[in-house]
């Protein structure tokens, strides 16, 4: 019995605006509770919503970056339910007339290679506040600073076939959204939240199995773990002759397992209807075109261009395009004269390490470019260059100057080389004799000795011809 897993993901991203979706409160992070509030986001009697132009723009750009059809007219709708951090007793969202539908995202599936995943829809909505259940015993504490913050909800088609693919989708989605400038998509800050829908079916079956919802996951790695756990649970259940019921499963990061939420007495009836406080959202075609023009080169296009323009293999191009800052840095390094392949290696190793540790690029691209050129023209060995890089990273400076200061410049001066060659030849008469007798491999040993005697400063490429001349004489 082989099983097929079917997964769809619902992602909520906070749009990177200054103010909330429907009021002029600042959309800030980490402030004292209930200090970023006003009559509108508090849901006070008589308050009314006023939609944020930047949220509309960023949502539109995100939709365009995901190849969606952006609808010239969409409608805000009320989603009605009661919850302590939902001030109005309804959330302003979009229902049957969303901002955008019918998009697609290219991902690298761990099992199936390059894959196009459908995007069902993208719509705008406001966030709810935060409910904290463990701050005061027996009470729930409510902070409405987050209430009203603008979100884009992005729903994928159920095109994903494994938890690994789900994770790859999230990585690709975040990358595109960050490129498009929609927001920072930081899961740590809660600016990107994911719910997964997962079902299983026998391979070959076309109907979908009953799906469950997986929530409360706070990292891409945990999404994968949670979906694996739920997939396995469903398969075990079905193989034992049971049936999957439509429940919501909560992920527990400590155990790596999912468990069902307390069962609901009845499912929600949200009673959606168009919000009478908000006339239709109309996007003039010229304005949508302006948003399209404002998009930077997106990951797919950038990867293709890095491959063709710099002759890089696909893997390298994808790594470099992982973040715009890295890709820009790479190109600036090449523009400063570095060999493209060497530059790619450097960015993917030394630079990436610094970036991952500190989130910054401490060595200016022009300096790296110069450094790479010093290696290429033989002035520095690769090891020496890495030392120079580390020094520039921590203390600044210009590569050649730093190299000279550290005494790392490779010596290519013939007379200096001849001195070392003569010294080593004199010190190893046996090996020299054996070489002259035909053991040509001993060149490597002698070069090594010369490098040692010169304390690494001799340029190995320059040493070899000088040594050979000496040995043949």
């Amino acid at each position, binding site marked *: 019995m082989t099983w097929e897993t079917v997964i769809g993901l619902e992602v909520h991203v906070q749009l990177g605006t200054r103010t909330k979706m429907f009021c002029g409160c600042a959309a800030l992070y980490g402030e004292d509770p209930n200090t970023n509030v006003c009559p509108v986001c508090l849901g006070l009697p008589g308050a009314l919503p006023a*939609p944020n132009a930047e949220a509309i723009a960023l949502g539109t750009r995100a939709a365009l970056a995901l190849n969606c059809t952006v609808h010239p007219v969409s409608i805000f709708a009320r989603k009605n339910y009661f919850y302590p951090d939902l001030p109005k*007793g309804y959330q302003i969202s979009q229902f049957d007339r969303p901002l955008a539908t019918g998009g697609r995202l290219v991902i690298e599936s761990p099992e199936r290679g390059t894959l196009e995943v459908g995007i069902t829809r993208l719509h705008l909505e406001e966030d709810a506040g935060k409910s904290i259940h463990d701050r005061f015993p027996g009470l729930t504490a409510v902070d409405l600073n987050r209430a009203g913050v603008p979100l884009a909800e992005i729903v994928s088609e159920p095109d994903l076939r494994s938890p690994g693919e789900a994770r790859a989708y999230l990585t690709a989605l975040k990358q595109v959204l960050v490129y498009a400038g929609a927001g920072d998509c930081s899961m740590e800050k809660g600016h990107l939240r994911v719910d997964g829908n997962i079902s299983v079916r026998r391979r070959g079956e076309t109907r979908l199995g009953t799906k469950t919802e997986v929530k409360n996951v706070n990292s891409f790695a945990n999404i994968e773990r949670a979906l694996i756990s739920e997939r396995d649970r469903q398969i075990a259940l079905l193989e034992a002759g049971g049936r999957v019921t439509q429940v919501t499963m909560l992920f527990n990061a400590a155990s790596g397992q999912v468990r069902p939420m307390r069962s609901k007495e009845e499912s929600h009836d949200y009673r959606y209807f168009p919000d009478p406080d908000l006339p239709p959202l109309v996007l003039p075609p010229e304005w949508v075109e302006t948003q399209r023009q404002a998009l930077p080169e997106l990951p797919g296009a950038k990867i293709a261009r890095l491959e063709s323009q710099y002759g890089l293999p696909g893997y390298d191009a994808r790594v470099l395009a992982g973040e715009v800052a890295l890709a820009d840095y790479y190109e600036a390094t090449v523009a400063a004269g570095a060999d493209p392949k060497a530059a790619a290696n450097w960015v993917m190793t030394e630079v990436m390490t610094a970036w991952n540790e500190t989130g910054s690029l401490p060595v200016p691209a022009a300096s790296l470019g110069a450094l790479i050129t010093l290696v290429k023209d033989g002035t520095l060995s690769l090891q020496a260059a890495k030392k120079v890089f580390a020094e520039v990273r921590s203390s600044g400076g210009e590569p050649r100057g730093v190299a000279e200061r550290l005494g790392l410049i490779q010596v290519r001066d013939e007379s200096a080389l001849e001195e070392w060659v003569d010294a080593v030849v004199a010190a190893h008469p046996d090996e020299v004799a054996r070489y002259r007798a035909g053991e040509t491999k001993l060149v490597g040993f002698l070069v090594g000795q010369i490098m040692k005697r010169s304390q690494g400063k001799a340029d190995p490429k320059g040493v070899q011809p000088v040594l050979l001349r000496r040995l043949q004489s």
Partner: protein
Amino acid sequence: MSLRALGADTAARLRAAESLNAVLHWSEAHLEHEAARLEAGPLGPLGGMPVAVKDNIVTLDLPTTCASRILEGYVSPYEATAIRRLRAAGGMVAAKTNLDEFAMGSSTEHSAFGRVHHPLDPALVPGGSSGGSGALVAAGVVPAALGSETGGSVRQPAAFCGVVGVKPSYGRVSRFGLVAFGSSLDCISVFGRTVSDAARVLSAISGEDPRDATTLAEPPMPVPEPRADLKGLTIGLPKEYFPPDLDPGVRAGMDRAIARIRDLGARTVEVSLPHSPYAVPTYYILAPAEASANLARYDGVRYGPPRPAGLPDVRALYQATRGHGFGPEVRRRILIGTYVLSAGYYEAYYGKAQRMRARIADDFSQVFATGIDLLFTPTTPTPAFRAGEKTEDPVQMYLADIFVCAVSLAGLPGMSLPIGRSGGLPIGGQLIAPYGADGPMLAAAAALERGLDPTEEVR
């Protein structure tokens, strides 16, 4: 009269009218404060006019309760745009007036703080939901008052009380700070002793507001120049508003007013608004539906009545707050509204009502497109009725709105003008104008006002 004296005089009048139960909040200190504020700066065009405010419009210094226990003692931390503009224009906020709870009603009998008495006969209702404001103006306590309309709640009490009541075009006046009942219908509206008083107040509070996305992108309406007569105008008389069983007093009043309209030089012509019979049921689907969502915020979490002890969980909090805090009419409407939006019923009720609304609006557009300038109809089917007469049967109460409801659904400007008395009770005639034609409507009303004695017996 100085502003201080005006404040003191208003206080005396409010005190003298206490038996009406038309006021929920007022104080001498507040009136003094208002007078001092007006005295301190340049006086705007309203010149210190004392204006009463329906207690579903938020003010800073006086509470806003919407005549509900769920907001008892609530003091708003912000001010409605209409109030800010009223005060900036030189208006003096005199008092907060009684209403049907959350503006749901046609008699002001559904207030949690007791009903309002008709100024001419305490056994009668003043109409509703803005009965407090209407009664105060009729009793001569203030020259003007703000009310709100969702389905006729200013025009109808204006007719019952014998004062002018003006509902502007939807979107003319900002709703920011008007406690929402039916958002696509709600309009802050104005009572006045005269057309001129009402027009001046309406002008002061009107105009685009970036805080309210449903306001028209237009500057404040200028005070219209009153017409001397009605020459050149064609007034339509929709036959559906003159049924054979119309109250004889109302009919006599209308006949007299129509004769006057012709004397003033207008042409009258019978027209038809064929979807009129569906206005009330359409309204009683759409308004409660919107209300059910608008009143969901009253959950006792962020504001509301003192919290009872020993609540086991938050759901108990909601049910206790809302169960005890809302009166029976409000609860009924929330339930109806929830029902017509719920899964399986949306299309049959809400969907159909939306479509019927479009047809009702279209009836008016088509009539106005044939060269009709204004429509003239009775405002109410009868004069003021007795308290308790209609409270047993909700649907009977709804039918009191039969002539005012369609105008609200269509978003049109409409007003009631007192046109005479029947058995001592006021009768109102309603003018209806095309969307946006608030000015011309008021200009014509001024001419008709001059031509009619509103205290004259019509039979």
